[in-house]
């Protein structure tokens, strides 16, 4: 028992030491502890100062808490958008869509040719994996009311877990559940899986069967769709997944029944993802596809996923600019002003104390640092609590921030926010307290005591 505990501890320590960052952080933590010990009397003084007016400390801390929380939420959204629009150099996806028109509508036959990357000559490159996307919107009632609208991605179920980033970081249980659902959809193409919010919105339960009346493929209504499960928390919450064969078979059936193909039969493929190992292959593949005569009507374009997402986000360009360069700085400025007000009041009330400290031998710089430390401490604690609170509440309780930005799922607070919060708290506190601290540093002993006398 004891031996196994030791072994497990040893394994954990070795795993911890695997990352150089962990070692650096541990060293910094140790250094901070040493400093804390060395400066213990000053730290006690700072804490005492804060405890002297707990109401003011509480109010300043609360303001910091709230404003850091707003910035954490905003940065989380911007951070994710930056992340998805940043170009990768390895293991990325290329998106093939119609060249000129939005929404993209291509013949389904393109998918087969794209599996080979449009290769025609020896030495041409091929993608590692391919995934086709077809969009199907349907309502639960024949009157096609908007409240009952469900938007589906018609996909090859086999590609869901291998190609979609949404399902990469599932835990073991979620992964097993997804595998089970994928197998079930492969076995029976009438089965569908819905996002949690979507299921809630249409007021249905797993196990129920629904009929879908299409809004984008008129006449392609899908009966007897069995809801076999919900997508894991936070993934495609507003949408549903169905087997692509279900849609394609229905389009074929339409032609058999009506004697002519459905008007959208040759426009049913909306986009194709190609998995690419590196940028060099991407360049070759993009050229092959652009030059291939197979993609003439309609012409197609190839772009990296990040570039494609950037284009969609372009409609929000001005708003995101305003958020990044007006809103965030203004919140930071407000926070600094609130802290500056509190610290300057505190310094003004303690001018006699500062004078006494000077008489006792505290240098001006030491007094300056004590005031700064007081503000930084409030910033650190409030910032850490705020970021931690936002992380827990928004991710665990709310399931992410639901914002109307393109097709993005709810925005979750990243783990990185846990260091943004304290850092922001400390920095804004330092900026806000620099002038009051400087005024504390410049207290003239003779002036203060002459006034007292």
């Amino acid at each position: 028992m004891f031996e196994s505990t030791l072994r497990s501890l040893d394994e954990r320590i070795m795993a911890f030491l695997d990352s150089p960052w962990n070692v650096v952080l541990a060293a910094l933590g140790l250094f901070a502890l040493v400093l804390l010990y060395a400066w213990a009397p000053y730290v006690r003084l700072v804490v005492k100062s804060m405890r002297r007016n707990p109401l003011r400390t509480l109010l300043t801390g609360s303001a910091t808490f709230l404003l850091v929380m707003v910035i954490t939420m905003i940065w989380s959204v911007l951070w994710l958008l930056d992340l998805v629009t940043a170009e990768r150099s390895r293991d990325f996806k290329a998106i093939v869509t119609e060249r000129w028109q939005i929404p993209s509508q291509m013949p389904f036959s393109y998918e087969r040719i794209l599996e080979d990357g449009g290769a025609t000559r020896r030495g041409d490159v091929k993608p590692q994996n391919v995934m086709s996307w077809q969009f199907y919107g349907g309502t639960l009632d024949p009157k096609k009311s908007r409240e009952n609208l469900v938007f589906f991605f018609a996909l090859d179920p086999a590609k869901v877990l291998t190609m979609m980033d949404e399902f990469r970081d599932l835990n073991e249980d979620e992964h097993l559940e997804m595998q089970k659902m994928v197998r079930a959809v492969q076995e029976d193409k009438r089965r569908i899986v819905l996002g949690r919010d979507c299921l809630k919105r249409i007021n249905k339960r797993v196990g129920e069967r629904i009929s879908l009346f299409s809004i984008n493929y008129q006449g392609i209504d899908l009966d007897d769709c069995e809801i076999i499960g919900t997508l894991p928390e936070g993934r495609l919450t507003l949408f549903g997944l169905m087997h692509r064969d279900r849609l394609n078979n229905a389009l074929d059936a339409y032609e058999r029944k009506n004697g002519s193909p459905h008007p959208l039969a040759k426009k049913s493929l909306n986009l194709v993802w190609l998995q690419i190992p590196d940028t060099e292959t991407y360049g070759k593949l993009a050229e092959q596809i652009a030059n291939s005569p197979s993609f003439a009507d309609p012409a197609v374009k190839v772009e990296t996923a990040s570039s494609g997402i950037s284009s969609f986000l372009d409609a929000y360009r001005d708003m995101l600019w305003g958020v990044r360069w007006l809103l965030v700085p203004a919140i930071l400025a407000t926070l600094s002003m609130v802290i500056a007000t509190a610290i300057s009041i505190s310094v003004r009330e303690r001018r006699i104390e500062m004078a006494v400290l000077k008489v006792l031998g505290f240098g001006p710089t030491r007094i300056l640092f004590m005031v700064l430390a007081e503000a930084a401490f409030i910033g650190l604690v409030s910032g850490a609590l705020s970021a931690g609170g936002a992380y827990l509440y928004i991710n665990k309780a709310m399931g992410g921030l639901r914002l109307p930005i393109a097709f993005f799922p709810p925005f979750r607070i990243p783990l990185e926010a846990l260091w943004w919060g304290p850092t922001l708290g400390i920095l804004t506190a330092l900026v806000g307290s620099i002038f009051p601290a400087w005024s504390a540093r410049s207290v003239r002993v003779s002036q203060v005591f002459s006034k007292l006398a």
Partner: protein
Amino acid sequence: MDILAKILIYLVGGAFVLFAAVAALILVLGLLLALVFILQLFGLLRRVPFNYNLRNLFVRWPTTLLTALAFTMVVSLLIVMLAFVNGLFVLTRSSGQPANVLVLSEGATEESVSSLGFGDITALNQHPAVAKDENGKPLISWEVYLVVNQPIDRPKPGGQKRRFLQVRGLMEPEQTGRVHRIGLYPGGSWFTQAGVQAIPGKADEQAIQVVLGEGIARTLGQDKDKPSLQVDDVFQMAERSWIVTGILQSSGSTFDSEIWAKQQIVGEKFGKASYSTVVMRTTDAQTAKQTAEDLSATFKPAVAAQVETEYYERLNTTNLQFFYAAVVVASFMALGGVFGIMNTMFAAISQRQKDIGVLRILGYSRWQILESFFLESIALALLGGAMGCALGMAANGWSASSIISSGQGGGRSVVFKLLVDGKILLGGLIFSLVMGNIGGLLPALSAMRVRPLESLR
């Protein structure tokens, strides 16, 4: 949902309810005090030493300024955010005509996903509700709406590489202009029946004729280092040359971001042969409403008809979500400001204990002390709020682009102007007063409880 999530929801929900209850109580008290203040102004009640409070704000000017600046930031940001949302609301409101009926394919929520090619709908031309012009021609517009991807000629480093252009293919542009009540600026003309013409100076090169909305003309002008494209200017789109024949008087509507061209040409070019939209002018709003209902219920093949203004109203769904997000952000910031003013007022009261004692000995009652400090915080909030309104007004008329959508996927990019109106400014001022009220009343209550003799000891 796990236990942690439930605990978090209850904790935050409980704290929110508690805070909301306290804030509501404070607001009610604040309103009562405001009523008392009005009675004092009319001499019906004894006045408070408000001049004393005002002078104190001047004496402690650095703290006053810092606190007011925090308010300024919050209020000015609120005004900019509301001006953005207001600009979009006004844009969608101005885009539709109440007497127009807009017909889309059954189930389609937006023009971009509508296709009227599933049956013969030419009978709409003969619909009795359609109004006629002075020549007896039906005021009906047959349109195809497309979004086209345009690579930008010389993209700035790190800037956008392409944009989405909204193209509307029309049968008879002049008739469409009349239906939508949009004309051309002098010097321009509608595109011809052929829809193409030779490029001036290049007789052997043909270009597709277009009329442009004012906003998109400005956007495309940037590519050519001009403030706006003008008549006879040529631009590239989808590997073809397009020549401008006119600029639409479309400012303040969604048509401001559109390119109008000949339907047959764009339909063929972009593989969209069927129409996406039919817009019918009726005699009045009531007839339009009735016609839309009749068409949706009885017309074969099935279509989705609605009054044009209602259609654009629905495109505000995304905008409403922006509005809620703005209110949430502003509320959080306001709470930060409230804590700031509380700090200031508590400090002011603790420094002026003796003053309060003297005022009490001079005969001012507790409630007068309460009211005077409450008014001091309100004055501080008003100062910050007024500065915030002045700063926020600078955003009026800023040009911006965004998206409007019914929230069912799709959506359209629009160019619009931020609009700061009287309602927004009033909202900003009320917002700052509420902040001052919530932040000032608790400190004022503590001032009221000061005991005169003890404070002077």
